[in-house]
C-alpha cells in the first residue's frame, strides 16, 4: 500500500511509510482496545453466570453488550481526581506507562503467518521484555499516589512480577529451543499440520511446562489468585486506589490487553498459533507453498484460530478468578521460587535431553507429513523477508488490513 501511495499518487517515500505505519498502529491499538472492551463485557457476563446472576442486560438492547462502552463514557465524564500529596507528573504518567507497555507488545505479535505489525527475529524476547515494563506503571502509580495502600500494592507488584519473570522466561525458552528460532512467526509455522505437531504435545515435558507457563502468565498479569497488587479485601484497591475516571480505565485496559497478550503468546508458543488442529488447507491443496500467494481466506482463518485460542485462555483466567481465593504474598513467592522455577528448570532440562536423544519423537515422522509443505513455505518467505527491507512485513499487514476493509 505504501508503494501504491508512492508510485501512483506520487507522495514522498518518508510520508507514505509514516502514514502507513500510523494507520497500522491505529488499527492494532483499536482492535486490541476494542477487544479489551469486549473482554470486560464478557467478564461481567461470565462472572454473573458463575454467580447465579444476570449481569448487564439492558444497555445496547440484548445481553447488555454496550455496557463497556457506557462505562467508558461514564469514566470519561468523571472528575479527574488527584490526591493533594501526589507527585503530579508521575501520577499522570503512570497509567500511560502501563497502557503503552501492554499495547506495545502487540507490535511483534503475529496474528497469522504474515499478519504481523513488525516481524522481529527476536519476537519472543521483545514481547516478554515489553510486557515486563508494565510493572513500571504500577510502581509509579503506587509511589506517586501518596497513599499507603497504593504503596503496598506497588511493592507487592514489583516483588511478584520480577520473581515470576524468571520461570516465565524459562517456559518461553522451551518453544524457542524446539523451533530453533526466537521469531514468533517461525515458532508458529513449525507447529503447522495436525494438532499433534503443537509444541504442547511435543513431549511430556512441554505438556507440563505449558501449565507452568499458564501459572506464571496469570501471575505476571496480576490476575486472581495472584492479584495481590490490587487485593480488594486487603489494600482497598491497591495501586489504583487513588485513580479515577479515564486514568483508572487506562490501567484496566492495560490489564485486559496483557491478559489477551499472554494468552495469545501461549497460543503461539504451545498451541499451534494460527494453525488449526486439522490442516484443512493442506489436505484440500489450497496452499501452493508460497506465502505471498496464500489466499486471503487462509490469513483470515489463521487470525480467527489465534483469536479463538487466546480468547479461550482469557476465559480460563476469568473462570479461575471467580472461583479461587487469593493467595498471600509469601505464598505467591513460595509458589514461584519453590515450585514454578524448579519445575520449569527441570522441564527445560528434560526438553533439552529429549531434543538430543529423541528429536523425531517416539514414533518418528508420524504426524509431521503435512508440515513439510509449510516448512518450505516458511523458508521461502523468510529468505524473501531477510532479503528485502525489514518493514516489508508492515506492508503485508497493511495489505491485509486493506483487504479486510474492502
Amino acid at each position, binding site marked *: 500500500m505504501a508503494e501504491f501511495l508512492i508510485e501512483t499518487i506520487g507522495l514522498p517515500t518518508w510520508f507514505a511509510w509514516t502514514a502507513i505505519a500510523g494507520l497500522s498502529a491505529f488499527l492494532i491499538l483499536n482492535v486490541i482496545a476494542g477487544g479489551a472492551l469486549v473482554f470486560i463485557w464478557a467478564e461481567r457476563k461470565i*462472572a454473573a453466570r*458463575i*454467580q*447465579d*446472576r444476570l449481569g448487564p442486560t439492558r444497555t445496547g438492547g440484548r445481553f447488555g453488550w454496550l455496557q463497556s462502552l457506557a462505562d467508558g463514557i461514564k469514566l470519561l465524564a468523571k472528575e479527574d481526581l488527584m490526591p493533594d500529596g501526589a507527585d503530579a507528573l508521575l501520577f499522570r504518567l503512570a497509567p500511560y506507562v502501563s497502557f503503552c507497555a501492554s499495547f506495545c507488545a502487540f507490535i511483534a505479535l503475529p496474528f497469522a503467518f504474515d499478519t504481523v505489525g513488525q516481524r522481529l527475529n527476536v519476537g519472543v524476547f521483545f514481547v516478554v521484555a515489553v510486557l515486563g515494563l508494565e510493572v513500571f506503571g504500577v510502581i509509579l502509580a503506587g509511589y506517586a499516589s501518596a497513599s*499507603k*495502600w497504593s504503596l*503496598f500494592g506497588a*511493592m*507487592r507488584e514489583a516483588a511478584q512480577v520480577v520473581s515470576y519473570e524468571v520461570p516465565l522466561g524459562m517456559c518461553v525458552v522451551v518453544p524457542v529451543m524446539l523451533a530453533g528460532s526466537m521469531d514468533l512467526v517461525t515458532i508458529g509455522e513449525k507447529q503447522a499440520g495436525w494438532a499433534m505437531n503443537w509444541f504442547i504435545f511435543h513431549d511430556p515435558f512441554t505438556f507440563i511446562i505449558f501449565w507452568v507457563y499458564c501459572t506464571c502468565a496469570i501471575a505476571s498479569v496480576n490476575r*486472581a*489468585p495472584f*492479584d*495481590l497488587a490490587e*487485593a*480488594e*479485601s*486487603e*489494600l*482497598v484497591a491497591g495501586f489504583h486506589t487513588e485513580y479515577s475516571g479515564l486514568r483508572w480505565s487506562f490501567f484496566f485496559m492495560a490489564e485486559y490487553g496483557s491478559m489477551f497478550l499472554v494468552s495469545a503468546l501461549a497460543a503461539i508458543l504451545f498451541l499451534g498459533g494460527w494453525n488449526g488442529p486439522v490442516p484443512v488447507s493442506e489436505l484440500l491443496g489450497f496452499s501452493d507453498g508460497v506465502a505471498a500467494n496464500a489466499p486471503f481466506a487462509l490469513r483470515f482463518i489463521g487470525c480467527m484460530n489465534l483469536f479463538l485460542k487466546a480468547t479461550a485462555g482469557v476465559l480460563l483466567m476469568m473462570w479461575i478468578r*471467580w*472461583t*479461587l*481465593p*487469593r*493467595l*498471600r*504474598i*509469601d*505464598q505467591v513467592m513460595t509458589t514461584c521460587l519453590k515450585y514454578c522455577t524448579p519445575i520449569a528448570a527441570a522441564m527445560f532440562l528434560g526438553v533439552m535431553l529429549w531434543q538430543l536423544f529423541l528429536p523425531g519423537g517416539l514414533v518418528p515422522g508420524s504426524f509431521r507429513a503435512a508440515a513439510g509443505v509449510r516448512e518450505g513455505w516458511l523458508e521461502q518467505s523468510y529468505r524473501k523477508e531477510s532479503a528485502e527491507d525489514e518493514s516489508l512485513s508492515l506492508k503485508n499487514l497493511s495489505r491485509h488490513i486493506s483487504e479486510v476493509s474492502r
Partner: protein
Amino acid sequence: MVQTLDEDQRIIEFDVRTDEMLVNMGPQHPSTHGVLRLVLRTDGEIVSELEPHIGYLHRCAEKIGENLTARQWIPYTDRMDYLAAMNMNLGWSLAVEKLLRYQVSEKARHLRVLIVELNRIASHLVGMGAYGLDLGTFSPFLYAFREREKILDLYEEVCGARLTYSYITVGGMTADLPPGWLQRCEAFLDQFEPIIQEYHTLLTTNAIFVKRTATIGVLSPEMAIDYGCTGPVLRGSGVDIDLRRDGESIYTAMYDGYAFEVAVMKNGHYPRDHEYPAVPKDAVLGDCWHRFFVRMLEVVQSMDLVRQSIDRYSQCKGALGEPLKLAEKLPAGDTYLETECPKGQMGFYLVTDGTPIPWRVRARSSSFSNLAVSPELCRGCLIADVPAVVGSLDVVMGEIDR
C-alpha cells in the same frame, strides 16, 4: 557540641533503620465488616501491632432502653446483631420473661426454636460468604446470599420484615405462622442441604483457602476464656460450651427434648452425625479454619434443629398465646440472662423499679469480646492475614457499638 555521624556509630544505625508505618484500615475499608477501624503498625507487610477502634455505629441503644417499656425496646435489639435479629429478640424477651417468671406456651416454645435456628443458618451464611470475600473469592458470597435470601423470604411471610423482625417478643410472638409456611420451610431445607457440600468444595477444602486459614490466628483455649470469647470462636478453640445445653434453665428448657451435639472438636474429631470433609493436616485447633468450620457445622446442626422443631410445632395442640401487654409492669429487681446467639453469648441485664420502664438496661455483646482478642491474634502476622483473622471472628459492628 553536635556529634557528627562519623563519631557516633549508633546514629548511622538509627539512620539506616526502616520506619514502621501506621496504617488506618477502615472505617471505610472493604473488609472491615461495617465501620470497624483498625490501626495497624506495620513493618513492610508484617503487622507488629493492631488496635481496633470502635464507636462509629454507637446509637445509645442502652440509654433508649431506659426510656421505653420492655416490649417497646424489642425493635432496638433488632439493630444490634442485625444479621441475627431473631436471636436478639429472643435474648431480651427471655430476660424479661425470667424477671416476670413467665412461661410461654408449648407451641410458642417450639416456634421460637424454629425461628431462631433458621436465623442462625442465615447469620452463618453471611459470615461464611463474607469470610470468602475477605480471602478474595467473590462467588461463595453470592451463593450464600442466594440461600439467605430464601430464609428472608420465609421471614417476610412471618412478620413482614426481612432484616429487623421484632417477631419474637416478650411473652410469645407477634403472630402465628401463615398457612403453608411449614411446607415451604421444609422445601427450603431439602433444597439447601445438598448445597452445603458446594460450600465445602469452594471454601472449606479448597487448597488455597486452607493455606490462607490453617495455622493463622491460633487462639488457645486459655486465651479465649481469658478474653471472654464465646460462641464459635470459643468452640473453635476446642472449649465445649454451648449455652443451649449449658445455659440457664429458662433458656435450656426451650431446647428440652431436642437432640443436638455441640459442634466442638473432642478427642481430635468433630461430632460425626453428618458427612463433612476431614480436617486438613495443617489446621491447628483454634486457628481461623476451625472457627470457620465450627460455623459450617452449626449450619447443619441448626438445620437438624429446625426439622425437629417443625415436627414438634405441628404436633402441638392449643393456642400460641398472646404476648404480654405493651406496658406490662415489671416487678422491682434485677436480672441477667445470656443466650447462645450465632456470634456468641449475648447477655441482657435489666434493673427494674416496679414501673413498666426498666431503670437500667445493659447488653453484653459477644462480638465485643471476640474482637478484643484480635490484637493478640494479629501480632506478627502479614497484612493479608488481618482480614482473615478479623473475618474469622465474625463480628457485627451493630452489636459491638449498640
